[in-house]
């Protein structure tokens, strides 16, 4: 019988240096997927490496041998640390536990920031790589596809992903509470750093079409503007644009405030009091904090946004509990399916044997009766095929039904003995003899 095993390390179990080293070794020296042919006891393999985790997911017939091989691989990639160290970094999950673990990772329940959406994309691309290397088969294919659908279900049935936990996301959520829709709104980006870029992406994905970039160095401003199809405005003319923009996102390295109380106040009448939202993620701050007192002007600095994030994190924790329930339910379903696989080789062997007998007997009959026409032969062919099919129907249905039970191995072994089948499930050896013991007990 196949078992599913996860071996890996994440941000909770291993320090970043160790994860780094492993990820780097996997990327640069030898991709683990390419090593599969050398791993004799590992059947299917999938490997995931993100900044927070490195994981090997594999199926095997003999767990001890396979674990030893994967452990050896890890050791080599890590530059042979002492085994005691390795054991403390690495976690191993088997069977149901492994399935639950994968589902939790895919649903972002095991992430450093619970609910962050990137992990699913990372798993998908890791899976794509594994399919390209042809290292995944029936079980892992189905398992990973199931993981994607579980992640989707968690996302749609709980609000785990809907509470802002990044600065830029929190800013967009606030803007939506002020303006409703952001589609017709104009955004001014002051500064062109990484934070500004990230926030601009969020605004873009929420339908903002008019963006303007102001930066002290024009080249960078033009770069960013091209990326988001935005306009540029020179740094000196920022105050003039205040008349038209609805959202101002500021993140410059300026030691002095860029926007003062009076600058904004005097422009509100020109704006006909349309609301304006300042997001100041610079430290030291770019916007005078007093402008929050002006009617229809809203100002959030980095600490305010952080406050929202902390609040949402608690909310997320509650949603995570509901998500865990979904994961547990789906994992159980998958393991049930996995068990039905145990009887498949027996069924296949049974069918093969019957087919071999049928073909052999037909051949003999045909050689003894050379005068048969083609139509007669065809009829005989059809006759034998339907006899075999009808005869095997009940045993196969019986096996499939028993596949969901604990005792399935007994029934599989019993069937193998009954029909004297050679190709059993137990490559690892003893399942047939175990079966004999069980059969004796049943007698």
């Amino acid at each position: 019988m196949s078992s599913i095993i996860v071996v890996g390390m994440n941000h909770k179990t291993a320090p970043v240096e160790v994860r780094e080293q492993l990820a780097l070794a996997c990327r640069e020296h030898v991709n683990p997927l390419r090593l599969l042919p050398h791993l004799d006891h590992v059947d299917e393999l999938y490997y995931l490496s993100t900044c927070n985790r490195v994981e090997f997911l594999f199926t095997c017939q003999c767990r001890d041998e396979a674990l030893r091989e994967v452990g050896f691989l890890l050791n080599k990639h890590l530059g042979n640390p002492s085994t005691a160290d390795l054991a403390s970094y690495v976690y191993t999950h088997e069977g149901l536990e492994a399935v639950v673990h994968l589902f939790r990772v895919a649903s972002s329940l095991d992430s450093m920031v619970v609910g962050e959406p990137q992990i699913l994309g990372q798993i998908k691309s890791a899976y794509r790589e594994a399919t390209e290397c042809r290292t995944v088969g029936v079980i892992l294919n189905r398992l990973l596809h199931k993981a994607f659908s579980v992640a989707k279900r968690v996302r749609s049935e709980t609000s785990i992903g809907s509470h802002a936990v990044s600065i830029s996301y929190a800013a967009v959520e606030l803007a939506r509470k002020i303006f409703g829709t952001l589609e017709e709104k104009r955004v001014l980006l002051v500064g062109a750093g990484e934070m500004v870029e990230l926030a601009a992406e969020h605004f873009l994905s929420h339908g903002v079409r008019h963006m303007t970039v102001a930066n002290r160095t024009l080249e960078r401003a033009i770069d960013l503007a091209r990326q988001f199809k935005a306009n540029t405005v020179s740094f000196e003319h920022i105050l003039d644009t205040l008349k038209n923009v609805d959202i101002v996102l500021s993140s410059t390295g300026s030691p002095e405030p860029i926007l003062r109380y009076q600058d904004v106040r005097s422009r509100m009448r020109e704006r006909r009091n349309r609301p304006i939202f300042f997001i100041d993620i610079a430290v030291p701050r770019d916007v005078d904090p007093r402008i929050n007192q002006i009617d229809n002007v809203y100002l959030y600095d980095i600490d305010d946004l952080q406050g929202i994030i902390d609040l949402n994190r608690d909310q997320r924790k509650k949603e995570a509990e509901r998500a865990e329930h979904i994961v547990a339910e789906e994992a159980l379903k998958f393991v049930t399916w996995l068990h039905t696989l145990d009887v498949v080789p027996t069924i296949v062997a049974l069918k093969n044997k019957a087919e071999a007998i049928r073909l052999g007997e037909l051949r003999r009959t045909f050689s003894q009766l050379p005068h048969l026409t083609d139509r007669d032969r065809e009829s005989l062919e059809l006759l034998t095929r339907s006899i075999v099919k009808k005869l095997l129907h009940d045993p196969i249905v019986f096996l499939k039904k028993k596949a969901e039970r604990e005792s399935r191995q007994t029934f599989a072994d019993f069937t193998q003995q009954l029909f004297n089948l050679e190709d059993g499930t137990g490559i690892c050896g003893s399942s047939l003899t175990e079966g004999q013991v069980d059969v004796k007990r049943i007698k």
Partner: protein
Amino acid sequence: MESVFLVIATLCYCLGTVGYLIYLVRDWTPVHRTSWWILFIGVIFHGISFALRSFQEEHLAVTSSAEALSFFALVLVSTYLIVQVRLQLRILGSFVSPLAVIFMLASTLLPSHIIPKSGIFQSGWVVLHVSTLFLANALFALAFSAGVMYLLQERHIKHKSFGYLYNRLPSLDRLDTINYFCLIIGFPLMTVGLVVGFAYAGNIWRSPWNWDPKEIFALITWIIYAILLHERLTVGWRGRRAAWMAIFGFSLVLVTFLGVNLFLKGHHTVFVR
């Protein structure tokens, strides 16, 4: 018979309000839908009761404070139901339906004399005067509710303290739009109602303006809303200030409507006691 219907209507309003208050705390669509229908049934019973009573008295049954208030609740709930279908702002119900219940309960406490029948109520002018003004007031009540919601939500955002309602209340822009919508429809209705009132007064009392307290307050209310509308259209007043004006305006409506009926003697008291 009509009082039985009135009791059923009041019960429906109470039940609908409970539903809407639950909806305020929990985002369950079925709760909203059920509450809407309960309010709708309430409106039907209330309407029948009002029609029966008007038929009995042979003029619109709004001649006592109790009747007027009850009729106002009817118009308010009907207006909300229509606005909800039109604008889809469900949470507004949680703020409007309690108002309706308060008015219904208050109307049972107020004096309800049936005054002698008189020819002056049977004019079409009275019907027009009453219906436009009540509809305008109902819209102002909605603007008042939207104003309260706006102030709550603005407080959340300005003070950066996010209570539970923050997630349930709509965006500031949305609330401000509702406020404007109610004003832009309510104000012309109010103007028509007042003009008709003055014209009819001029007709039966020889003078359109009689320094009646009700007239004075009505004019003040009208001026307040006129200022709000004017400032909105010219300077672009909006947000907090507009919300406060809507709240202030509706308070004046209530004073005109009830306070004057109950505490001040005047011309209107001849027929509204």
